[in-house]
């Protein structure tokens, strides 16, 4: 008996047992059940998923990751997506995923968007805006930095008095930071933007992986000024007295978006659409805006009859730039590579 025949007969005889063993040990990726798998970078995702399951009876497997690792997972799984719904801050990455045809397009949830929300809804209906934050605001440690040194304009960060005292996130790792870098390049021109970040680097800019690391550095006194996403800055300032949020003009508008996978069909597609609809419903929005456990609740809603939280006051009225995702999305690899080569090190 040859080895091949022996293996063949053994496999035939024990195929069910083998499959069970492989599935249990995860050697083959488990087949998708009726459960809806949601990849979310939003802190309130778990609470919302629980409420949705209670309201609809549809089970949700919520996978919570930071935006950077989440985007990496989605890219890595592009050939075999293991998610049904995707939800994170940043329409530039969403546009890129739509371009790669991994998002289901064409459907629009039946919700009453405000004009700003309608403007952010893409014409191909591949993803749906949930709310907006600002990609970069300034968080200052009042106890360590005298008021006259507070940076009120972006150019103030280049001042020698702030040498080695400013930190920001790495756009290659932190999802919300690429829109900030791209926004500065839209504001100053690509060459001017590069010159600005190079000068920041020359002034001792410290680049940390993501919001949390930058905020920790501020908390531990390693830096005195942090450039981070507005929701994170507002959340940190609310928890730790002595921190002040400043919003230099212009700020860059950062929509959080939700999307459904292109490979989702049948009952699961219906469940996914119900989930999106629920997120954008008044009941869903109430959950998102009142979750005190996460800074992600500090966003401006885009739906009629949903009111923004009072905590947004320090960043209200700031002039916000809106980036064109079709232009800046495809430029992300080049700009991020430039940033890594010239600023991160």
């Amino acid at each position, binding site marked *: 008996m040859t080895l091949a025949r*022996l293996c063949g007969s053994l496999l035939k005889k024990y195929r069910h047992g083998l499959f069970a063993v492989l599935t249990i040990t995860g050697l083959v990726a488990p087949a998708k059940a009726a459960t809806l798998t949601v990849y979310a970078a939003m802190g309130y995702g778990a609470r919302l998923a629980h409420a949705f399951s209670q309201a609809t009876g549809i089970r949700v497997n919520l996978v919570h990751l930071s935006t950077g*690792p989440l985007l*990496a997972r989605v890219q890595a799984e592009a050939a075999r997506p293991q998610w049904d719904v995707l939800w994170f801050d940043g329409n530039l990455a969403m546009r890129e995923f739509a371009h790669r045809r991994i998002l289901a397009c064409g459907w629009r949830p039946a919700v009453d968007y405000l004009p700003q929300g309608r403007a952010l809804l893409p014409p191909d209906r591949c993803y749906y805006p949930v709310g907006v934050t600002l990609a970069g605001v300034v968080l200052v440690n009042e106890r360590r930095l005298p008021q006259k040194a507070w940076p009120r304009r972006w150019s103030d960060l280049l001042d020698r008095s702030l040498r080695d005292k400013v930190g920001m996130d790495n756009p290659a790792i932190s999802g919300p930071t690429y829109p900030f870098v791209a926004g500065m390049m839209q504001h100053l021109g690509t060459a001017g933007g590069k010159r600005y970040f190079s000068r920041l680097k020359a002034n001792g800019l410290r680049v940390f992986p993501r919001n949390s690391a930058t905020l920790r550095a501020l908390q531990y006194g*390693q830096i005195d000024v942090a450039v981070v996403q507005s929701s994170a800055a507002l959340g940190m300032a609310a928890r730790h007295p002595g921190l002040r949020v400043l919003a230099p003009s212009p700020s860059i508008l950062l929509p959080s978006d939700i999307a459904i996978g292109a490979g989702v069909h049948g009952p699961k597609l219906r469940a996914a659409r119900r989930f999106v609809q629920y997120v954008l419903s008044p009941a869903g929005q109430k959950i998102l805006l009142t979750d005190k456990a996460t800074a992600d609740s500090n966003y401006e809603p885009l739906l009629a009859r949903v009111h923004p939280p009072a905590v947004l006051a320090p960043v209200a009225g700031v002039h916000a730039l809106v980036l064109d995702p079709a232009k800046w999305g495809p430029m*992300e690899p080049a700009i991020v590579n430039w940033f890594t080569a010239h600023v991160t090190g």
Partner: protein
Amino acid sequence: MLLADAGADHTANARILPGVRRAAWRAGAVLPALAACALWGWPLIGFLVTAFVPGLLHGRFAPGIGSFLQALHGGALQALRNSLVVALAAALLALPVGSWLAWLCMRTTLAWRGWIEPAVWLLLVMPGYFLASGWMLLAAPEGPLAHWPWIQDLAGHLLGPAGIILTLAIKALPYPFLATQAAFLSSSAAPLEAARVLGLPRWRQRQIAMALLLPALVAGFAAAFAESISDFSVAATLGAGSGTVLATYAIEQAVNAMPLNFALAAADSWLLLMLIVPVLSGQAWLARRATGHRSLGPRFRPPAPVRPQFTTSLMHALAASLLAALALGAPLVAAGSLALAGRAPSDLPNLLRAVMPSLRYSLELAMLSASVTVTLAWPIAAAVARRGRAGRLLDFALLAVMALPGIVLAAAYVLAYNQSYTPLYGGSGLLIMAYVALALPAATKVIQGSVARLHDRFAEAARVHGLSRLQTMWHVELPILARPLFSAWLLSVLHIAFELPASELLYPPGHPPLSVALLDSVSAIRLHQQARLQLSGMALLVVFALLARLVFSRLSARQVATIPPAVAA
């Protein structure tokens, strides 16, 4: 008697078809090669080739050196430079401290010297991120030093490059310790006595003593350097948190960020390996040529132990206590104070509920992976022990894999096992494979000595009694090798349960292992949860290790009791 009992199965064996037996033998030869290919060959070759031909595994053939140019420019180059500097500094710091501890342990009569070796082994088993996380908790604004701001400011310096070097040096300290310990054990008193008899000055005698230790010192330095430059856990905690990007972290970020850049990760891996391989090769070259340092022989005499004076003993004790407090005490105290801050004892169930899923998942995977690891390590160790060219080649391959940074293998797995024809990415199975691939070399080394000491006559006697190879392994070799196999298993469980780089890149979404959950707590500034995870993880694994040892002792005692007196005799 035992052999005779087992031989009773001979008639049953005779019924097995010769073809099946032949096929099994062929499979026995082919399966290890397939396993080696799946665990290391295919992913590593596919990944490293990507540096020269980006997109090769995705069906695109566009060779070039663009990824190397990118890796040798700006931030990527800086990360490599940072790694080189901190690894050199850590190894230079670890070398004298490790050698000093080995000298205290082997050459003095100090009463407390027996504690040194267990403490060094504890350091060896303890993951680097526990130390790093401990420093972070120590320097936290609400940490145990909150009432002493000036000490807290001092501790804050541990969160930068100084802390990275110190943590890596402490983690690498066991390597020079073990290397010089072995040298002290085997070095003879004769050369130094001769130097004294010849009236050489004291500095010259010291020079001779150092020259005798040179191969061990170089080996210790090389191992400490390789360990420090390959480290990912300190790079992902203290390094990332202080903005000091190290090469291993840069590799992880290239395959765990937007945009994915496997070619850059592969080029970074090549450059990292180019820093590690020459150091280890140089050490191996020196060890081969260090024949002049051979002192073990028929006239071997160990030197007389040193009896330090009271003040010298006191200084040694103070220095060792300070080191122990720095390496083990401070991180544990910091974690303990934050873990229990504001918590009543009644909160314990809630506390455990929060950390249990990650702990349980890690322990389950660790036990499963360690079992597979030991099952594979045994025949590999036997093959290495057989000598010959194949054995030497296998031994070299195992050493090469041991020197491979875990993050490089993990990045290679992401690329190799996320193709349409290898759809394993995202499942626990791939994580188990990575754990096995990373733990197998060390497990093989642990049992290699015991397997090599097995006398050939056992196998011959078993063959005479009609036992097959498998039956010989089961009935004859397993009882003899049970203890080293168990040690290898336990060591693998502890290593895998704390493993970080492969876990970080390969864990199934929604099921973070212990190390990933701890890292998430670190990055989310959830200090209390970070401290609780750290302490409960360590406590649970210590309890598990003790229980496992107890069960093994009971089982092995029962096994001995059931051996017939004739066999025992």
